């Protein structure tokens, strides 16, 4: 039912694009397809995610662009279902206090939008609907952008609102959160077939302001401020945390989270070697007291007119959430209980990561006529990255996470007709 709704949405979007484009004479059509394969296999877990996507954009006039697209996540692997720490493991040396469960999921997302342009102002609106076995999302976004100072300064503000729902297990009305049980599986989610399934709301309000500035003919900068407020059920419904002797409870995170990020990046063209050097720094803070710093660097160089290669590096470091503990049952600090909330999420623990990668991009522009008789331009890219994570506190029953590295392969093809 949901899949047919999604297919209908994508079909309607493409039909609208074709219908809009057909009578126009000077329309420009852009087709993009991007595929990403992510694989990691650290201690006790593994995850493979294949993300295909395709987008079509039509500009029937010089003041209007319409786009529609589709993206999916095909997920398979295993994740931690019950989390315990070293203190509990020490008192139960013979028992395996951490369990993993297999994960198979498919997320489909249909998206569409439009951009109106008049002189130096662009207004954009968009919508995305995504569905998976245990999660549904409706996302709206609007943005306004203007160029000033002879196109040397660009300002953009945007707002996005998500209305999401996540499947959860029905809990006993008399139980406190420390007695809540985790969702066993997604069977019966978003249907009325299973009386032990319910849905919980998640709202996401996001605001962003961006200032891009050309300072010289070879140097540009960008300043981005993002604020986001998440409200609703933000835990993993499947994950349990051991809180004490015989006490295993569904992960319980606060229902509200305000997040802020400020990023600044610069891009310098190095004329003598026909290359660009990019550097970016981002600071982040949220009301769960997660603070992080990200430093990114890219170096991209032309090899001839059509081929360019890029090398990139990224370093990320974050503190843990205020209520993060590797073991809520006790032990010396930083172990022990942390108030009314608990989580087994490694993303909320203190850790650092670094990423290195490279990309090759081939671009062809039509010079006399069109490429293969139909294309104005064509672009194809291939990228590979390695992500290495280092967890300061997160363990599985006292066992540190080993082999915490992920490999990311990306392919992108774009054609302008």
């Amino acid at each position, binding site marked *: 039912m949901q899949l047919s709704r999604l297919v209908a949405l994508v079909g309607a979007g493409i039909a609208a694009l074709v219908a809009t484009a057909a009578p126009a004479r000077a329309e420009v059509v852009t087709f993009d397809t991007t595929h990403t394969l992510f694989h990691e296999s650290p201690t006790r877990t593994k995850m493979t995610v294949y993300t295909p996507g395709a987008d079509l954009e039509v500009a029937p006039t010089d003041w209007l662009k319409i786009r529609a697209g589709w993206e999916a996540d095909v997920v398979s692997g295993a994740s931690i279902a019950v989390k315990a720490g070293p203190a509990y493991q020490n008192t139960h040396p013979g028992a395996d206090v951490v369990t993993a469960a297999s994960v198979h999921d498919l997320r489909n997302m249909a998206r569409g939008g439009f951009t109106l342009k008049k002189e130096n102002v662009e207004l954009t609106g968009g919508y995305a609907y995504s569905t998976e076995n245990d999660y549904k999302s409706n996302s709206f976004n609007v943005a306004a952008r203007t160029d000033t100072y002879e196109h040397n300064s660009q300002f953009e503000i945007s707002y996005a609102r*998500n209305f999401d729902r996540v499947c959860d297990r029905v809990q006993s009305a008399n139980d406190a959160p420390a007695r809540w049980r985790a969702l066993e599986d997604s069977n019966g989610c978003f249907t009325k077939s299973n009386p032990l399934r319910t849905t919980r709301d998640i709202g996401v309000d996001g605001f962003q302001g961006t200032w891009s500035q050309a300072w010289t003919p070879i140097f540009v900068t960008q300043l981005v401020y993002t604020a986001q407020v998440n409200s609703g059920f933000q835990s993993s419904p499947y994950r349990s945390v051991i809180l004490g002797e015989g006490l295993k409870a569904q992960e319980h995170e606060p229902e509200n989270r305000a997040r802020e990020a400020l990023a600044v990046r610069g891009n310098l063209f190095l004329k003598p070697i026909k290359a660009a050097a990019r550097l970016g720094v981002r600071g982040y803070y949220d009301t769960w007291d997660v603070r992080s710093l990200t430093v990114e660097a890219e170096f991209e160089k032309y090899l001839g007119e059509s081929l360019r290669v890029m090398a990139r590096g990224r370093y990320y470091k974050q503190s843990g959430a205020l209520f993060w503990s590797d073991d809520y049952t006790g032990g010396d600090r930083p172990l022990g209980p942390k108030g009314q909330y608990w989580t087994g999420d490694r993303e909320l623990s203190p850790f650092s990561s670094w990423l290195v990668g490279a990309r090759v991009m081939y671009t062809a522009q039509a010079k006399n006529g069109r490429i293969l008789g139909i294309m104005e331009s064509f672009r194809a890219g291939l990228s590979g990255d390695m992500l290495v994570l280092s967890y300061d506190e997160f363990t599985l029953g006292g066992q540190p996470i080993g082999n915490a590295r992920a490999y990311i392969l990306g392919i992108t093809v774009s054609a302008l007709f």
Partner: protein
Amino acid sequence: MIPVRMICIVIAASTFGCVTVKPQERAVLADPVMQFEGDPHAAAQLRHALENREGAYGGSSAVGGGCGCN
């Protein structure tokens, strides 16, 4: 408090930052390598993979609400 500070910084910086690069000098700035997100779809997918493994969010060039993914 921080948004008000941010707005002040942007206004002050843009006042000093209106250095004009003349139209005939913009050839390099129009080059794909001078775009911060020259391949937005691929960048979005990489960002999606990273954000699902990190506590942080935001600061990219992209417009969107992200997700409440858990």
